[in-house]
């Protein structure tokens, strides 16, 4: 099981703070994950319709979309950051 966590407008559109999912074996990269999530319902589609702008962290470190997700315990999806 992998823990997915959502922030800001991605959290609002999906309608969940977090969830535990069993990832299909053909979901091997961050890009695959975003594509797979879009098929899970309207909220997901609304949140992830522009996958390019979605930022992703695996085990609390930033990753690129081409990177593998093998071994991830916690994957977070969020919009570009606006702190400071």
């Amino acid at each position, binding site marked *: 099981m992998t823990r997915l*966590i959502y*922030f800001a407008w991605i959290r609002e559109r999906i309608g969940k703070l977090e969830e535990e999912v069993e990832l299909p074996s053909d979901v091997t990269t961050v890009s695959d994950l975003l594509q797979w999530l879009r098929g899970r319902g309207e909220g997901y589609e609304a949140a992830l319709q522009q996958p390019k702008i979605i930022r992703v962290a695996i085990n609390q*470190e930033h990753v690129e979309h081409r990177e593998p997700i093998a071994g991830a315990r916690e994957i977070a999806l969020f*919009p570009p*950051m*606006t702190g400071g």
Partner: protein
Amino acid sequence: MSVAPMIRIQAEDFDTSAEIARLTSGRGDVGAVVTFSGLCRDEAGTLAALEIEHYPGMAEAEIGRIAVQACERWPLTGLTAVHRFGRILPGQNIVLVVAASAHRQAAFEAAHFLMDYLKSRAPFWKKEHRIDGSTGEWVEAKESDEEAAARWR
């Protein structure tokens, strides 16, 4: 050997002079302290408050990683970063960076570097609450913030 930065993520306000004193009191080797404070603007009177969301755990870790880079890159005697979350009113503090060094250049540059990287890499998001009672939009990231961070590479 570089110094260990102090990073705090908190809902409460911070005391800038106390944070400066923490890096300077009881020592004679600090010749320069640069502080940066980021405050909540009222956006020409239209903003009631900002709501700042963060990723607990990663927020500390990511600012920590950036701060360690700053400590390796410049000869600092101390480095502190404090970032608030929750509801912040116009005029209130959001973020503080304090960089101390023997000389001013390292302190200025380290503070600038830390802020530029923090803006585009630390997992915080701001949502606007308007004076008219509406919940406004999530603040959009600026291209110029990405470019500011890229300058340091």
